[in-house]
């Protein structure tokens, strides 16, 4: 029996000691102005990362080498599980995913430690100190309630296998991606706490914070998108968003983070909205912690919930109370002194960004209310209610449609003074084109239209045209564009793509449940589906039944699809693998249901126009974020003294060129 797991546990204990050191000394040092104490922050952060990495690799090794003497491995892996899924199984359940969470926190912390030399020592120390304290909390939680290194006496002969729903390539990278996003928001949170502790919240602070927020947002965007993609082809129902509590838990911090970097644009450029920016930074991270609590405490029923445990729930609740409670108390104390006496006109960019913030926060709040409403009713002793997709879709559109319509105008408005009339004049042809296509287009292509659909398409097209229009104009005039501005336009173009896909697929998607049998073709949405054969086969750890379904349209072959029904041997559970013919213009989707007798099967057939734009749009958004992050003014100069020069060099373009948000 290898002693590696015990070493892993010791590594985590050492990491805990280092986190405590990193959490206490630099904060005290910054308070007293003691450089010796502050100098502990960076080495402690890097060393902590090293020890957490050791623990993590030991757990990976335990999975890869099938060490079923560990309870966590025995519960979540199996010797027949392909090796890539054995690695993914490390974060396939609660304990290991907490370890991944901590690893990612230490990666972000190390990145801050390495990239913060241009910050004043006090600021860097406070930021790292706060991150250290967060790490203490998560390490304590993991060691005391969720230790992945617990032994099983006697060792299991084989493992119970990874939940088959998670045995999928997208699920190897989806959780890490999402966690990098969630945990990344802790950096913005730490910056906010540091600013409140020091009382220093100026435009420079906003400039330091902004790229970190954008980076976290990029990962969060991709993580959520991957989850949606997985749900689309793996759950078998062809939906891409279910408003499930777990999905909502990831979407709320995303909305808050989106509001945050728009608000940071105003704080960076004009020195305004400081207390609001602080609140958003606290809110974004708080919502990601809240998501963790909702998912892992078992307080809500969800499709993807972890095996839940109320003891863990209480621990996270106390942690939440300490972290968010202290942050908000600090906010109540410090924020009132942050007002600045600077103005802007009613139609200036500041107003549009404020509007963006208000609408995004309303959207996040509505999702929070919908998610928690069943809890609320039950707590009042009024029984149980359900809040489903239909409610969320209806409610969510109320703030989002105006937001979408305003992006195109807001992004072309100028700082300080309004230029609404000239924006509308410059873009009148694009507005007219969006209106025309939005109203007539669906009639021509799909033969019908509705007010809501037309609004969605007009808004989406207008955003796309407005985002493409400005850069094209600059290119034509031979003028340069900052990467920040290019990133903003690209991200907004992605928003338009997404909105177009979402509107079209929800308005014109066709879904039909049919019975299919060999020799009896069925037709749906103009496509004919014929079951050619049903084949049985064996995968590495499952048996499958595969339908061979030929799809034709007007007699022309379109595709042959292979939907599967899999029975995973270890957990005896059935999984549906959809057969999808994906094109940019539409997906044709077949999922096998149940045997109906007489060799007939129930199948769900779907026609999903433009559904790919949903994921393409999110990728474009993320690329826009990356581009904006790489702007010259955020590239940190490590050389001593360079910080000052960077600041001077960068302030000028930031004010004169329309490049933010």
């Amino acid at each position, binding site marked *: 029996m290898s002693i590696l797991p015990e070493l892993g546990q010791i590594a985590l204990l050492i990491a805990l000691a280092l986190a405590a050191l990193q959490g206490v000394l630099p904060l005290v040092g910054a308070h007293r102005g003691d450089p010796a104490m502050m100098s502990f922050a960076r080495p402690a952060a890097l060393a902590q990362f090293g020890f957490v990495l050791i623990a993590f690799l030991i757990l990976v090794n335990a999975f890869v080498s099938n060490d079923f003497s560990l309870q966590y491995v025995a519960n979540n892996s199996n010797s027949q599980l392909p090796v890539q899924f054995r690695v993914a199984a490390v974060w396939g359940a609660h304990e290991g995913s907490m370890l991944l969470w901590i690893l990612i926190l230490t990666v972000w912390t190390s990145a801050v430690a390495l990239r913060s030399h241009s910050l004043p020592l006090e600021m860097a120390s406070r930021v790292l100190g706060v991150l250290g304290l967060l790490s203490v909390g998560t390490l304590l939680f993991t060691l005391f309630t969720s230790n992945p290194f617990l032994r099983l006496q006697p060792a299991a002969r084989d493992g119970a296998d990874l939940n088959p729903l998670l045995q999928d390539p997208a699920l190897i990278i989806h959780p890490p991606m999402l966690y990098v996003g969630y945990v990344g928001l802790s950096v913005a949170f730490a910056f906010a706490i540091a600013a409140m502790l020091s009382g220093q919240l100026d435009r420079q602070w906003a400039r330091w914070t902004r790229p970190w927020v954008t980076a976290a947002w990029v990962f969060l965007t991709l993580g959520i998108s991957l989850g949606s993609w997985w749900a689309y082809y793996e759950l078998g129902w062809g939906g891409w968003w279910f408003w499930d509590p777990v999905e909502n838990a990831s979407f709320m911090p995303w909305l808050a983070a989106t509001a945050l970097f728009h608000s940071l644009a105003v704080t960076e450029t004009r020195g305004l909205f400081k*207390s609001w920016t602080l*609140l958003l930074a*606290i*809110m974004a991270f*708080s919502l990601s912690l809240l998501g963790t*609590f909702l998912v892992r*405490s*078992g*307080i*809500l*029923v969800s499709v993807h919930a972890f095996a839940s445990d*109320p003891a863990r*729930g*209480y621990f996270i*609740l106390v942690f*939440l*109370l300490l972290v*968010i*409670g202290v942050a*908000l*108390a600090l*906010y*109540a104390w410090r*924020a*009132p002194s942050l007002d600045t006496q600077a103005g802007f006109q009613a139609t200036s960019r500041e107003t549009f960004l404020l509007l963006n913030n208000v609408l995004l926060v309303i959207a996040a709040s509505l999702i929070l209310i919908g998610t*928690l409403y069943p*809890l*609320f009713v*039950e*707590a009042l002793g009024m*029984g*149980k209610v359900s809040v489903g997709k239909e409610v969320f879709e209806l409610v969510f559109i109320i703030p989002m449609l105006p937001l979408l319509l305003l992006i195109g105008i807001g992004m072309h408005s100028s700082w300080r003074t309004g230029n609404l009339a000239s924006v509308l004049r410059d873009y009148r042809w694009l507005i007219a084109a969006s209106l025309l296509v939005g109203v007539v287009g669906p009639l021509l292509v799909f033969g019908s239209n509705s007010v809501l659909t037309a609004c969605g398409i007009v808004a989406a097209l207008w955003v796309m045209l407005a985002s493409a229009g400005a850069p094209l104009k600059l290119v034509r005039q031979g003028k340069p564009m900052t990467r920040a501005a290019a990133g903003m336009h690209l991200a907004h173009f992605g928003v338009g793509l997404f909105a177009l896909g979402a509107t079209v697929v929800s308005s014109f998607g066709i879904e039909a449940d049919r019975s299919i049998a060999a020799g009896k073709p069925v037709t749906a949405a103009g496509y004919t589906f014929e079951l050619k054969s049903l084949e049985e086969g064996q995968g590495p750890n499952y048996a499958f039944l595969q339908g061979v379904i030929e799809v034709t349209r007007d007699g022309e072959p379109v595709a042959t699809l292979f939907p599967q029904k899999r029975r995973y041997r270890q957990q005896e559970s059935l999984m549906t693998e959809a057969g999808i013919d994906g094109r940019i213009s539409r997906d044709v989707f077949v999922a096998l249901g149940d045997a109906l007798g007489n060799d007939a099967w129930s199948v769900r057939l779907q026609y999903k126009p433009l559904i790919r734009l949903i994921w393409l749009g999110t990728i474009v958004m993320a690329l826009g974020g990356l581009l904006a992050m790489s702007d010259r003014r955020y590239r940190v100069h490590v050389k001593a003294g360079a910080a000052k020069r960077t600041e001077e060099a960068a302030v000028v373009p930031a004010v004169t060129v329309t490049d933010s948000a």
Partner: protein
Amino acid sequence: MVRFIVPLGIFLALTGLFVVGLKNDPTYIPSPLLAQPLPSFTLASLADPNEQVKSTDLGGRPTLLNVWGSWCYNCRVEHDFLMQLTRNGVIDIYGLNWKDPRADAQAWLARYGDPYVASGHDEEGRVAIDFGVYGAPETFLIDGDGTIVYKHIGPLSADIWANDFAPRLAQLTTEAVQ
């Protein structure tokens, strides 16, 4: 500046909500039928299709209505306890045999014993819907007036009986005597 304290206030209210929420079981669905008269039904008897089991059979004294099926694992789990209740003459138990082919259900009772005064055969599941059943086993405690006093979801056991049923039954019996 009150408005800067608002976020903290909202957060603390949410925390209170979570403390309450952690104590509740998210999968438990309360029945709107409690304190209501039991839904009226007439079913063929499981033992003999020519006989009937009716809702009116259950009145006159406290009774249990137990929803079961031969396909249901947890019904097997609670079965010995039901047998014990009947053997000891604690209460009359009626069965609602849910979504079960008659032969299967009869064979199951022949094999494990029949604790029921009678079982109604609800193969289509319509009566179960009137009772708001969403999984077997479920057990209803019904008083002498035919009102549903209590509902338990999941297998019965001596512990659950002692905690949730016995006190209510004792109360019903005292009330009846008075």
